[in-house]
């Protein structure tokens, strides 16, 4: 029996783990060995000091967040049909996501094939597009009650220097129509009577829209045949599902796209530069509505107004969140989060990838058939103005990845970043 052996026994005895050794043997040794008695006293002192060692405490809500993730997985395992991204997702995901920016685990090389042309439209990616102001305006033109109308306006800040306004107008007879205005000076625009799904006066002159539309048309699926002639130009008819509603897309020979449906029609275009989808280039200004006075939207002019609270925010204006590991070859340019969501901007050279969560996309999305990322359903959304995005679930959080890539490459990118092993 060595002193070291006895000290092992003393240690195990404290832990109630001394099995197969008679306590009497230990006691006898202590009686005759001053060094081991001192050691036992030292262990007593150690125990006393240990009580003062601070404990590591997890965040108070961690257990509940964990349970929420488990509940999410339970739901995900239930068989289900096609998933529809609910509007409420924004608020829920925002609450879940604050503080939950994931750590993308895998190296990337897919982007090496997609180098953004120097300076090409990289800047808008640093902005989170999130202004949404809703107001109801009761107007009485000329003081004539018979001409009184109520205008419900939704004002969206869509991209730098670009404002989008949707106006639901109800006149004195109760008739409703919808107008959509893309603020003057930024883009082509359109106005449509909500019920007739056709152009009203002032349709842009397509002959003055210079560049061809990108392969965005490819996102629309197969052509369904010839469409009507719009502004003197023949179109091809596509059908897509927008926010769960089946809509018609008319594409003209110059590759411009007009999306029509029950209540609105949007005209726009996107542009490919060396195979990469970049921001819409400014095209000729077409005024069909009176110019919009920005000041009118800055103050509620004595009318009912609801500000949803979102503001345009460059990513670096958001409260900083903890550093996040970047995929290999990337650096984290900026990251931030607030109550409405979070944003993380990676950069590799001039190539930016913006990962946002729960920040509302102010664009009308093209909701395509779901694709799969990491064996899970994912949504590809292709806005008319801006970059495509893909939304998918990652470790219980809803992630939206936005990058200047075609949707199929975006899906591959998401797969590589988040589910490399699958």
């Amino acid at each position, binding site marked *: 029996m060595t002193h070291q052996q006895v000290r092992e026994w003393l240690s195990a005895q404290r*832990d109630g783990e001394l099995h197969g050794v008679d306590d009497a043997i230990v006691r006898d040794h202590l009686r005759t060995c001053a060094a081991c008695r001192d050691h036992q006293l030292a262990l007593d002192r150690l125990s006393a000091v240990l009580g003062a060692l601070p404990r590591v405490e997890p965040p108070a809500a961690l257990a509940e967040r964990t349970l929420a993730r488990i509940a999410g997985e339970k739901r995900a395992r239930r068989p289900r049909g096609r998933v529809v991204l609910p509007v409420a997702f924004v608020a829920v995901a925002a609450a879940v996501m604050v503080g939950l920016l994931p750590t993308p685990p895998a190296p990337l090389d897919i982007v090496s094939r997609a180098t953004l042309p120097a300076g090409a439209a990289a800047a808008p990616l640093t902005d989170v597009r999130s202004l949404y102001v809703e107001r109801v305006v009761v107007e009485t033109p000329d003081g004539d009650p018979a001409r009184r109308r109520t205008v419900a306006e939704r004002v969206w800040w869509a991209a730098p220097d670009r404002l989008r306004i949707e106006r639901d107008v109800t006149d004195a007879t109760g008739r409703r129509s919808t107008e959509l205005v893309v603020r003057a000076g930024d883009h082509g625009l359109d106005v449509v009577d909500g019920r007739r799904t056709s152009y009203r006066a002032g349709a842009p002159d397509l002959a003055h829209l210079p560049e061809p539309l990108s392969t965005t048309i490819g996102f629309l699926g197969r052509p369904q045949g010839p469409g009507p002639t719009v502004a003197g130009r023949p179109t091809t008819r596509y059908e897509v599902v927008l926010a769960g509603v089946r809509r018609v897309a008319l594409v003209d020979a110059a590759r411009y796209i007009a999306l029509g449906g029950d209540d609105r029609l949007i005209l726009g275009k996107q542009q490919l530069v060396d195979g990469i989808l970049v921001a819409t280039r400014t095209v000729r200004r077409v005024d069909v509505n009176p110019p919009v006075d920005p000041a009118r939207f800055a103050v509620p002019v004595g009318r009912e107004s609801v500000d949803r609270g979102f503001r345009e925010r460059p990513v670096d204006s958001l409260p900083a969140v903890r550093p996040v590991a970047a995929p290999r070859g990337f650096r984290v340019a900026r990251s931030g989060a607030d109550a409405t969501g979070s944003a993380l901007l990676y950069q590799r050279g001039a190539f930016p990838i913006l990962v946002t969560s729960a920040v509302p996309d102010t664009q009308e999305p093209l909701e395509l058939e779901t694709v799969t990322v990491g064996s899970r359903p994912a949504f590809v959304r292709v806005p008319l103005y801006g970059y495509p995005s893909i939304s998918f679930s990652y470790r219980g959080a809803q992630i939206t990845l936005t990058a200047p890539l075609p949707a199929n490459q975006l899906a591959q990118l998401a797969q590589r970043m988040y589910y490399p092993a699958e």
Partner: protein
Amino acid sequence: MPRSAQRGVDDDAFGDVVRRETTVVFGFILRRVGDRSLTEDLTQETFLRAWRARRQFRGEDTQGEGSSMRGWLCSIAANVVRDHARRERRRPTEVREPEHGDIPVGGDLGDRVVQAEALDRLREALTALPVRQREMFLLRERDGLTYKEIAAALECPIGTVMSGLARARERLAAAVLG
């Protein structure tokens, strides 16, 4: 007749497990990765894996076969940390205890200062311990794992736990006495 080992954890009980064991799993992982944010993610990942494998959990029977929930979770957490390190292609950071320089509250000021000094020495000695011994010590003293659970979590024989703990205590006790 020994009772047969408990098999599996039902969904309701699993919620209690998460609430009860989060602190232990969190501390276990934090000591390995050294980053609270990452630890939160990996803690959740640990419980998710445990939930997926809950039917395979084999509780301890009267013969001491099977394993305790805490030991089982720690062994899963160890795998989660390893997988993470593999993904990141780097070794887990060394075990760390939080910085904490406050003087303990209560009691005589002189005693408290002495206690604070002993605490500082303990921290230093903990840092100087071999990683494995430190982990054994903290799992035992801070998280209350049994030797068998520690052996399962660290994937080593119980005898190694016993001797490692004794050596750790020897060095720490010497440091505390100054």
